């Protein structure tokens, strides 16, 4: 965070006198201001000979601090933003869309948990295809286990468009496939890398007003997080929380839907429950638990948590081969 010395070039009122006044109280950066009691600082400043200049300087720093947080918005603005920008993306699965009140909501992070071979990756691929085709939006697919299959995507796309054509026009297929970007990431640091790059790209696109990315899929986020969640120490959890914070920020500021998958572990009585523990539970907006009976192609999904629907609801769906 900016040091006072650096700010002097922009705001000459923060001169050397003021800097040494602050340095005496252990304040060197704007960040130090934040963790300092401003009232006692003001009281101190009033005792000084050049109190007027110091007060001006403190007010100047307060203005800088005012720029550090997001602007307040009132309910009407929020409502308009939600109605205009926070659309719902159909997943291509009727049962799932019904459960999720229409599908994946932009601005929200949806977690899909389930044991191995319960259809998580299939669902991700289907959603990627549906969103790219029906909503004509870009999809960022972060693949952590080399399970992304372009062939399967093409297959899904052909299924989705079947009522219109027998086989999708190669040109259309190519265009839709081009809007799904797959990136392999194998540790949380490269995920941060990708997301930070994406953020700066989205920021510049936002200025030009052409955002086409509308969905981020991370399959599976738990394989990135599990290795860093050691038994002791807070670094791992700190990384997990900041990663989710970044995802929620991207989702809200740039109107993206985020879908992440999680594996399951045995809970009470051997019933599978989502992995990653207690502190993970609060991080996502929507939590789904997926399961499949052995040998059948019917998937069962139940809602563990949703911001606007009662939890506990369940649905069934089939993903065609």
């Amino acid at each position, binding site marked *: 965070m900016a040091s006072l010395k650096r700010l002097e070039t922009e705001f000459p009122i923060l001169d050397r006198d003021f800097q040494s006044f602050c340095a005496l109280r252990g304040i060197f950066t704007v960040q130090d201001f934040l963790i300092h009691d401003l009232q006692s600082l003001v009281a101190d400043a009033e005792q000084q000979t050049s109190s007027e200049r110091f007060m001006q300087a403190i007010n100047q720093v307060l203005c800088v601090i005012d720029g550090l947080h997001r602007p307040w918005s009132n*309910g009407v603005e929020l409502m308009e933003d939600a109605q205009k920008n926070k659309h719902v993306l159909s997943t291509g699965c009727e049962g799932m869309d019904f459960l999720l009140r229409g599908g994946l909501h932009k601005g929200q992070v949806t977690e899909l948990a389930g044991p191995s071979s319960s259809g998580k990756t299939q669902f991700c691929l289907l959603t990627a295809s549906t969103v790219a085709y029906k909503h004509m939006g870009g999809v960022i697919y972060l693949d952590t286990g080399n399970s992304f299959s372009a062939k399967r995507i093409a297959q899904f796309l052909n299924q989705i468009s079947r009522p219109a054509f027998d086989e999708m026009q190669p040109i259309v297929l190519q265009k839709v496939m081009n809007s799904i970007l797959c990136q392999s990431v194998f540790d949380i640091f490269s995920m941060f890398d990708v997301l930070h790059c994406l953020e700066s790209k989205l920021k510049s696109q936002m200025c030009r007003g052409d955002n086409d990315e509308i969905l981020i899929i991370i399959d599976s986020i738990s394989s990135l997080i599990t290795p860093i969640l050691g038994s002791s120490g807070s670094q791992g959890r700190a990384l997990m929380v900041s990663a989710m914070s970044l995802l929620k920020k991207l989702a809200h500021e740039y109107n993206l839907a985020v879908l992440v998958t999680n594996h399951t572990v045995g809970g009470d009585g051997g019933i599978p429950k989502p992995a990653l523990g207690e502190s993970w539970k609060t991080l996502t907006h929507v939590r789904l638990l997926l399961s499949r009976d052995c040998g059948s192609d019917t998937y069962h999904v139940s809602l563990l948590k949703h911001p606007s629907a009662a939890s506990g609801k369940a649905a069934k769906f089939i993903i065609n081969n």
Partner: protein
Amino acid sequence: MSEADVKSWINGDESAKRMLDRVLTSRPSFSLPPPLHRIPLRVANVVEIAGPSPSAKTQILTQTAVSCVLPKVWNGVHYGGLGRPVLYIDLDCRFDVLRLVEMLRHRIVQVNGCSSTAGNEEILKLSMRQFSYIRCYDSFELLATLKTLHHRLQKEKESNGIGGHLLMIDSIGAFHWVDRASTTLPLGGKNRKCLSLQNVLEIVVEDLRKLLLIHPMLVIVTKTAIVGTTGNEVKRNFKRWPSSGTPDTSSELERLQKPYFREYMPSIWQSFVTHRILVQGSDDHLAMPKSQENDLAYVSEWLLPRLNILDKFVVRDAGVFLVS
């Protein structure tokens, strides 16, 4: 001091009736919807809603915001709200504005019926304008928000003249892990305060305390309670974070009860909180006669002050409802 000054001082400034009127308008009490209805809450109270995830904490906040922003009477129609501004600081970034709108619409339609759509929209907008929202992605943004909140409220007071806000923070422990792991670059002198979990919360409490002195507000904060697991882990973690600040024997009792909640907020926060309510999911699914679906039931219990009443409630489209 001149004689006239002394005389006017002795004469007093206002009658008891005027003072009561003034206090009731500037330091109002809030009658809030269930499950917060058991205890009369006043400005300068700090209420903590604790509960594991999910336990309808954000839902309770949204419901409370609805009855707060809705006007009491408007155009001769009684809406039964408090007509007070709400400030919502979202640290979890999981607030759903459409849910707030949905619940407000329910309340308005309940009063007006669906007949006057234009009128309903107007009252909705009027209420929504009372709602202010900010999201913070890290502790710095929270501190920057609190540091500049005074100026914002001051400006608002000058232009509207209304005080008595409801300040909500969802949820206070959101940056716990990030702050625990954070380190500051060594720079400058030895007297520099370093950034740590303890320091951040100390200054958050300090800033809130100062805000409450100047601006009459009721503060409602949610906190994710961490369910302690059995066996060694509890012992180990318990040693690390002794739950201080609750000197009464109730904490002893809580520990015996199942499940056991681990306190992770520092004592400075715990002594700042004046009221605490615990919410948690209950295992019962209540079959409601009206709807075919089973509603998931939640249980709330006041821990501070301790009331030995358990309230059971369900969450439906229209909001939170008591069932027993």
